[in-house]
Protein backbone atom coordinates (compact mmCIF):
# COMPACT_ATOMS: atom_id res chain seq x y z
CA UNK A 1 0.00 0.00 0.00
CA UNK A 2 2.78 2.47 0.93
CA UNK A 3 3.79 3.14 -2.65
CA UNK A 4 3.61 6.75 -3.60
CA UNK A 5 6.82 7.61 -5.37
CA UNK A 6 9.69 9.85 -4.44
CA UNK A 7 7.58 12.82 -3.37
CA UNK A 8 5.74 10.78 -0.77
CA UNK A 9 9.03 9.31 0.44
CA UNK A 10 10.39 12.82 0.95
CA UNK A 11 7.25 13.92 2.79
CA UNK A 12 7.41 10.79 4.91
CA UNK A 13 11.02 11.35 5.82
CA UNK A 14 10.30 15.00 6.52
CA UNK A 15 7.45 14.05 8.85
CA UNK A 16 9.57 11.59 10.79
CA UNK A 17 12.49 13.98 11.10
CA UNK A 18 10.42 16.99 12.11
CA UNK A 19 8.48 15.12 14.77
CA UNK A 20 11.71 14.42 16.68
CA UNK A 21 12.93 18.03 16.99
CA UNK A 22 11.40 20.46 19.52
CA UNK A 23 8.77 22.60 17.85
CA UNK A 24 8.63 20.23 14.90
CA UNK A 25 4.94 19.72 15.48
CA UNK A 26 4.24 23.32 14.55
CA UNK A 27 6.09 23.02 11.26
CA UNK A 28 4.37 19.70 10.65
CA UNK A 29 0.96 21.27 11.19
CA UNK A 30 1.77 24.03 8.74
CA UNK A 31 2.98 21.48 6.20
CA UNK A 32 -0.26 19.57 6.70
CA UNK A 33 -2.24 22.70 5.97
CA UNK A 34 -0.32 23.41 2.76
CA UNK A 35 -0.47 19.83 1.55
CA UNK A 36 -4.15 19.43 2.41
CA UNK A 37 -5.02 22.69 0.71
CA UNK A 38 -3.19 21.73 -2.46
CA UNK A 39 -4.59 18.20 -2.46
CA UNK A 40 -8.13 19.31 -1.74
CA UNK A 41 -8.15 21.85 -4.53
CA UNK A 42 -6.90 19.49 -7.21
CA UNK A 43 -8.79 16.25 -6.65
CA UNK A 44 -8.35 14.68 -10.04
CA UNK A 45 -11.05 12.12 -10.52
CA UNK A 46 -11.06 8.74 -12.19
CA UNK A 47 -14.51 8.39 -13.78
CA UNK A 48 -15.33 4.73 -13.14
CA UNK A 49 -18.69 4.95 -14.86
CA UNK A 50 -20.26 1.52 -15.13
CA UNK A 51 -23.94 2.29 -15.70
CA UNK A 52 -26.52 5.07 -15.95
CA UNK A 53 -24.94 7.20 -13.20
CA UNK A 54 -22.04 7.72 -15.59
CA UNK A 55 -24.30 10.01 -17.63
CA UNK A 56 -24.64 12.34 -14.65
CA UNK A 57 -20.92 12.03 -14.05
CA UNK A 58 -20.25 13.07 -17.64
CA UNK A 59 -22.76 15.91 -17.40
CA UNK A 60 -20.92 17.20 -14.35
CA UNK A 61 -17.83 17.79 -16.50
CA UNK A 62 -19.73 19.74 -19.16
CA UNK A 63 -20.13 23.48 -19.24
CA UNK A 64 -23.44 23.64 -17.36
CA UNK A 65 -21.93 22.27 -14.16
CA UNK A 66 -18.25 22.75 -14.97
CA UNK A 67 -16.30 20.56 -12.59
CA UNK A 68 -13.07 22.10 -13.77
CA UNK A 69 -13.69 25.14 -11.59
CA UNK A 70 -13.18 22.90 -8.55
CA UNK A 71 -9.90 21.71 -9.99
CA UNK A 72 -11.50 18.31 -10.51
CA UNK A 73 -10.61 16.89 -13.89
CA UNK A 74 -11.51 13.48 -15.25
CA UNK A 75 -8.34 11.56 -15.97
CA UNK A 76 -8.72 8.08 -17.47
CA UNK A 77 -5.51 6.84 -15.92
CA UNK A 78 -5.27 5.43 -12.39
CA UNK A 79 -1.75 6.79 -11.93
CA UNK A 80 -2.85 10.39 -12.50
CA UNK A 81 -5.80 10.56 -10.14
CA UNK A 82 -6.54 11.02 -6.45
CA UNK A 83 -10.19 10.07 -6.26
CA UNK A 84 -12.07 7.25 -7.91
CA UNK A 85 -15.73 7.99 -8.58
CA UNK A 86 -17.55 4.67 -8.90
CA UNK A 87 -20.72 5.64 -10.74
CA UNK A 88 -23.01 2.76 -11.55
CA UNK A 89 -23.85 -0.87 -11.00
CA UNK A 90 -20.89 -3.09 -10.22
CA UNK A 91 -21.13 -6.78 -11.02
CA UNK A 92 -19.07 -9.50 -9.47
CA UNK A 93 -17.23 -10.00 -12.72
CA UNK A 94 -16.31 -6.32 -12.89
CA UNK A 95 -15.31 -5.93 -9.23
CA UNK A 96 -11.77 -7.38 -9.56
CA UNK A 97 -11.02 -5.00 -12.43
CA UNK A 98 -12.18 -1.98 -10.41
CA UNK A 99 -10.18 -3.14 -7.43
CA UNK A 100 -7.10 -3.52 -9.62
CA UNK A 101 -7.52 0.03 -10.93
CA UNK A 102 -7.92 1.28 -7.36
CA UNK A 103 -4.73 -0.45 -6.34
CA UNK A 104 -2.88 1.15 -9.24
CA UNK A 105 -3.74 4.62 -7.93
CA UNK A 106 -1.00 6.35 -5.98
CA UNK A 107 -1.52 7.14 -2.30
CA UNK A 108 -3.19 9.13 -0.89
CA UNK A 109 -6.41 8.18 -2.63
CA UNK A 110 -10.11 8.41 -1.98
CA UNK A 111 -13.25 6.74 -3.24
CA UNK A 112 -16.66 8.22 -3.94
CA UNK A 113 -19.58 5.80 -4.33
CA UNK A 114 -22.03 7.55 -6.61
CA UNK A 115 -25.62 6.36 -6.83
CA UNK A 116 -27.69 3.70 -5.12
CA UNK A 117 -26.07 0.82 -7.02
CA UNK A 118 -22.57 1.77 -5.95
CA UNK A 119 -23.77 2.44 -2.40
CA UNK A 120 -25.79 -0.71 -1.76
CA UNK A 121 -26.61 -2.52 -4.98
CA UNK A 122 -29.63 -0.29 -5.46
CA UNK A 123 -32.58 -1.89 -7.19
CA UNK A 124 -30.46 -5.02 -7.68
CA UNK A 125 -30.17 -5.62 -3.95
CA UNK A 126 -32.86 -8.30 -4.01
CA UNK A 127 -33.07 -11.35 -6.27
CA UNK A 128 -29.78 -10.67 -8.00
CA UNK A 129 -27.11 -13.27 -8.56
CA UNK A 130 -24.49 -11.01 -10.09
CA UNK A 131 -24.52 -7.51 -8.60
CA UNK A 132 -22.16 -6.49 -5.80
CA UNK A 133 -24.18 -4.90 -2.99
CA UNK A 134 -22.13 -1.77 -2.68
CA UNK A 135 -18.55 -1.07 -3.63
CA UNK A 136 -17.65 -0.90 0.06
CA UNK A 137 -17.47 -4.68 -0.12
CA UNK A 138 -14.09 -4.32 -1.77
CA UNK A 139 -13.10 -0.62 -1.62
CA UNK A 140 -12.79 1.81 1.31
CA UNK A 141 -15.45 4.38 0.44
CA UNK A 142 -15.04 7.95 1.73
CA UNK A 143 -18.21 9.62 0.49
CA UNK A 144 -21.54 8.04 -0.41
CA UNK A 145 -23.98 9.80 -2.76
CA UNK A 146 -27.59 8.65 -2.63
CA UNK A 147 -29.87 8.86 -5.62
CA UNK A 148 -30.90 6.95 -8.69
CA UNK A 149 -29.22 8.62 -10.38
CA UNK A 150 -27.94 11.54 -8.30
CA UNK A 151 -27.74 14.88 -10.04
CA UNK A 152 -24.39 16.44 -10.90
CA UNK A 153 -24.88 18.88 -8.03
CA UNK A 154 -24.83 15.90 -5.65
CA UNK A 155 -21.48 14.88 -7.08
CA UNK A 156 -20.20 18.42 -6.61
CA UNK A 157 -21.40 18.32 -3.02
CA UNK A 158 -19.57 15.03 -2.55
CA UNK A 159 -16.35 16.55 -3.84
CA UNK A 160 -16.74 19.49 -1.44
CA UNK A 161 -17.33 17.08 1.45
CA UNK A 162 -14.33 15.05 0.38
CA UNK A 163 -12.32 18.27 0.44
CA UNK A 164 -13.36 18.72 4.08
CA UNK A 165 -12.11 15.20 4.80
CA UNK A 166 -8.84 15.85 3.01
CA UNK A 167 -8.38 19.00 5.11
CA UNK A 168 -8.06 16.87 8.26
CA UNK A 169 -5.40 14.54 6.91
CA UNK A 170 -1.96 14.54 8.43
CA UNK A 171 1.44 13.59 7.07
CA UNK A 172 2.29 12.13 10.47
CA UNK A 173 3.16 8.49 10.45
CA UNK A 174 0.48 5.87 10.38
CA UNK A 175 -2.53 7.94 9.42
CA UNK A 176 -2.39 7.87 5.68
CA UNK A 177 -1.55 4.41 4.51
CA UNK A 178 -3.25 2.21 7.06
CA UNK A 179 -6.82 2.64 6.05
CA UNK A 180 -9.51 0.22 6.99
CA UNK A 181 -12.90 -0.21 5.48
CA UNK A 182 -15.59 2.04 6.89
CA UNK A 183 -18.07 -0.77 7.34
CA UNK A 184 -17.48 -4.29 8.62
CA UNK A 185 -18.05 -6.22 5.44
CA UNK A 186 -18.10 -9.92 4.63
CA UNK A 187 -15.26 -11.28 2.56
CA UNK A 188 -16.20 -11.44 -1.08
CA UNK A 189 -15.16 -14.01 -3.59
CA UNK A 190 -12.50 -11.70 -4.97
CA UNK A 191 -11.29 -10.30 -1.67
CA UNK A 192 -8.64 -12.45 -0.05
CA UNK A 193 -8.67 -10.37 3.12
CA UNK A 194 -10.88 -11.96 5.76
CA UNK A 195 -12.94 -9.86 8.21
CA UNK A 196 -10.59 -11.00 10.97
CA UNK A 197 -7.58 -9.66 9.08
CA UNK A 198 -9.43 -6.39 8.42
CA UNK A 199 -10.21 -5.86 12.08
CA UNK A 200 -6.59 -6.71 12.95
CA UNK A 201 -5.49 -4.00 10.54
CA UNK A 202 -7.91 -1.63 12.25
CA UNK A 203 -6.34 -2.33 15.62
CA UNK A 204 -2.88 -1.96 14.20
CA UNK A 205 -3.40 1.70 13.39
CA UNK A 206 -5.05 2.42 16.70
CA UNK A 207 -8.58 2.20 15.37
CA UNK A 208 -8.39 5.56 13.67
CA UNK A 209 -7.20 4.53 10.26
CA UNK A 210 -9.98 6.51 8.67
CA UNK A 211 -9.84 10.26 9.03
CA UNK A 212 -12.57 11.47 11.30
Amino acid at each position, binding site marked *: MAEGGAAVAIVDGLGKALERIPGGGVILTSLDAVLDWSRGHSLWAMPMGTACCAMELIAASFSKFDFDRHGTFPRPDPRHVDVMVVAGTVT*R*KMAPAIKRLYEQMAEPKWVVAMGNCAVSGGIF*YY*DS*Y*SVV*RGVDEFLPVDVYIAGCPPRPEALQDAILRLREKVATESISEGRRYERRLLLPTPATRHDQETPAAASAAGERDGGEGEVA
Partner: protein
Amino acid sequence: MNIEELREHLCATHPDLCPLFSTEFGDGVLGVERGELHDAASDLRDLGFDRLGMVTAVDRGETFELVYRLQSRSMSAGMFLKCEVPRSEPRVRSLTDLWPAADWQERETYDLFGIEFEGHPDLRRILLPPEWEGHPLRKDYTDDRIVPRPDFI
Protein backbone atom coordinates in the same frame (compact mmCIF):
# COMPACT_ATOMS: atom_id res chain seq x y z
CA MET B 1 -43.01 -9.02 -47.71
CA ASN B 2 -45.74 -9.51 -45.15
CA ILE B 3 -46.46 -12.60 -43.12
CA GLU B 4 -48.91 -14.14 -45.57
CA GLU B 5 -46.54 -13.68 -48.48
CA LEU B 6 -43.81 -15.22 -46.38
CA ARG B 7 -46.07 -18.18 -45.61
CA GLU B 8 -46.86 -18.67 -49.28
CA HIS B 9 -43.25 -18.36 -50.24
CA LEU B 10 -42.21 -20.83 -47.57
CA CYS B 11 -44.92 -23.32 -48.53
CA ALA B 12 -44.01 -23.07 -52.19
CA THR B 13 -40.30 -23.58 -51.68
CA HIS B 14 -40.23 -25.82 -48.60
CA PRO B 15 -43.46 -27.81 -48.27
CA ASP B 16 -42.07 -29.81 -45.36
CA LEU B 17 -41.60 -26.65 -43.25
CA CYS B 18 -44.99 -25.20 -44.17
CA PRO B 19 -47.10 -26.97 -41.49
CA LEU B 20 -44.66 -25.84 -38.79
CA PHE B 21 -45.18 -22.17 -39.60
CA SER B 22 -47.40 -19.97 -37.49
CA THR B 23 -47.68 -16.31 -36.64
CA GLU B 24 -47.28 -14.61 -33.33
CA PHE B 25 -47.24 -10.88 -32.60
CA GLY B 26 -47.08 -10.20 -36.33
CA ASP B 27 -43.95 -12.28 -36.90
CA GLY B 28 -43.51 -15.68 -38.41
CA VAL B 29 -42.73 -18.51 -36.03
CA LEU B 30 -41.30 -21.80 -37.14
CA GLY B 31 -41.30 -24.49 -34.47
CA VAL B 32 -39.13 -27.49 -35.28
CA GLU B 33 -37.96 -30.65 -33.59
CA ARG B 34 -34.55 -30.65 -32.01
CA GLY B 35 -33.07 -33.03 -34.58
CA GLU B 36 -34.33 -30.97 -37.48
CA LEU B 37 -33.20 -27.59 -36.19
CA HIS B 38 -30.01 -27.39 -38.22
CA ASP B 39 -31.63 -28.55 -41.47
CA ALA B 40 -34.52 -26.14 -41.06
CA ALA B 41 -32.17 -23.30 -40.26
CA SER B 42 -30.08 -24.14 -43.28
CA ASP B 43 -33.20 -24.08 -45.49
CA LEU B 44 -34.23 -20.74 -44.05
CA ARG B 45 -30.85 -19.29 -44.74
CA ASP B 46 -31.05 -20.48 -48.33
CA LEU B 47 -34.48 -18.91 -48.50
CA GLY B 48 -32.95 -15.53 -47.78
CA PHE B 49 -32.78 -15.21 -44.00
CA ASP B 50 -29.24 -13.98 -44.06
CA ARG B 51 -29.08 -12.37 -40.64
CA LEU B 52 -29.22 -13.95 -37.20
CA GLY B 53 -30.35 -11.24 -34.84
CA MET B 54 -30.56 -12.98 -31.50
CA VAL B 55 -30.41 -16.29 -29.70
CA THR B 56 -32.03 -16.90 -26.35
CA ALA B 57 -34.00 -19.48 -24.42
CA VAL B 58 -37.02 -19.70 -22.14
CA ASP B 59 -37.25 -21.98 -19.14
CA ARG B 60 -40.55 -23.84 -19.49
CA GLY B 61 -39.93 -26.26 -16.64
CA GLU B 62 -39.51 -29.71 -18.18
CA THR B 63 -38.12 -28.22 -21.37
CA PHE B 64 -36.21 -25.22 -22.56
CA GLU B 65 -37.53 -23.30 -25.51
CA LEU B 66 -34.60 -22.26 -27.67
CA VAL B 67 -35.33 -19.17 -29.76
CA TYR B 68 -33.45 -17.94 -32.80
CA ARG B 69 -34.46 -14.62 -34.30
CA LEU B 70 -33.84 -14.52 -38.06
CA GLN B 71 -34.09 -11.62 -40.42
CA SER B 72 -34.03 -11.30 -44.17
CA ARG B 73 -32.75 -8.10 -45.68
CA SER B 74 -33.89 -9.00 -49.20
CA MET B 75 -37.44 -9.84 -48.10
CA SER B 76 -37.62 -7.30 -45.25
CA ALA B 77 -39.02 -10.08 -43.12
CA GLY B 78 -38.34 -11.38 -39.64
CA MET B 79 -38.96 -14.82 -38.22
CA PHE B 80 -38.53 -16.75 -35.00
CA LEU B 81 -37.11 -20.23 -35.18
CA LYS B 82 -38.06 -22.17 -32.05
CA CYS B 83 -37.07 -25.55 -30.79
CA GLU B 84 -37.81 -27.42 -27.58
CA VAL B 85 -34.84 -28.85 -25.73
CA PRO B 86 -35.46 -31.29 -22.86
CA ARG B 87 -34.08 -30.20 -19.52
CA SER B 88 -32.73 -33.68 -18.85
CA GLU B 89 -30.50 -33.52 -21.91
CA PRO B 90 -29.96 -29.87 -22.88
CA ARG B 91 -28.04 -30.46 -26.06
CA VAL B 92 -28.55 -29.17 -29.56
CA ARG B 93 -26.53 -28.76 -32.73
CA SER B 94 -24.89 -25.36 -33.05
CA LEU B 95 -25.81 -23.01 -35.89
CA THR B 96 -22.45 -21.23 -35.93
CA ASP B 97 -21.61 -22.82 -39.28
CA LEU B 98 -24.66 -21.12 -40.83
CA TRP B 99 -24.45 -17.69 -39.16
CA PRO B 100 -21.17 -16.72 -37.47
CA ALA B 101 -23.26 -14.32 -35.35
CA ALA B 102 -24.49 -17.35 -33.42
CA ASP B 103 -21.08 -17.74 -31.79
CA TRP B 104 -21.34 -15.32 -28.86
CA GLN B 105 -25.11 -15.58 -28.66
CA GLU B 106 -24.96 -19.34 -28.19
CA ARG B 107 -22.19 -18.88 -25.65
CA GLU B 108 -24.46 -16.55 -23.72
CA THR B 109 -27.32 -19.05 -23.87
CA TYR B 110 -24.96 -21.75 -22.68
CA ASP B 111 -23.70 -19.50 -19.90
CA LEU B 112 -27.09 -18.51 -18.52
CA PHE B 113 -29.27 -21.54 -19.36
CA GLY B 114 -26.79 -24.38 -19.60
CA ILE B 115 -27.83 -25.49 -23.06
CA GLU B 116 -24.89 -27.14 -24.78
CA PHE B 117 -24.34 -26.49 -28.47
CA GLU B 118 -22.66 -29.35 -30.27
CA GLY B 119 -20.15 -28.24 -32.85
CA HIS B 120 -19.69 -24.78 -31.33
CA PRO B 121 -16.08 -23.69 -31.89
CA ASP B 122 -15.54 -22.14 -28.45
CA LEU B 123 -18.28 -23.04 -25.99
CA ARG B 124 -17.35 -21.42 -22.66
CA ARG B 125 -18.82 -18.81 -20.36
CA ILE B 126 -19.02 -15.31 -21.76
CA LEU B 127 -20.83 -13.12 -19.18
CA LEU B 128 -20.04 -14.81 -15.89
CA PRO B 129 -16.58 -15.59 -14.52
CA PRO B 130 -15.26 -18.96 -15.72
CA GLU B 131 -15.30 -20.48 -12.23
CA TRP B 132 -19.02 -19.77 -11.77
CA GLU B 133 -21.17 -22.74 -10.87
CA GLY B 134 -24.68 -23.14 -12.21
CA HIS B 135 -26.72 -21.29 -14.81
CA PRO B 136 -28.53 -18.31 -13.27
CA LEU B 137 -31.41 -17.87 -15.71
CA ARG B 138 -32.72 -21.35 -14.99
CA LYS B 139 -35.73 -20.99 -12.74
CA ASP B 140 -34.42 -23.53 -10.23
CA TYR B 141 -31.10 -21.72 -9.82
CA THR B 142 -30.22 -20.86 -6.24
CA ASP B 143 -27.27 -19.09 -4.75
CA ASP B 144 -26.25 -18.33 -1.17
CA ARG B 145 -25.62 -14.71 -2.07
CA ILE B 146 -29.06 -14.01 -3.49
CA VAL B 147 -31.12 -11.94 -1.06
CA PRO B 148 -34.78 -12.92 -1.59
CA ARG B 149 -37.24 -10.10 -1.95
CA PRO B 150 -39.43 -9.76 1.15
CA ASP B 151 -43.19 -10.18 0.78
CA PHE B 152 -44.00 -6.59 1.67
CA ILE B 153 -42.19 -5.12 -1.32
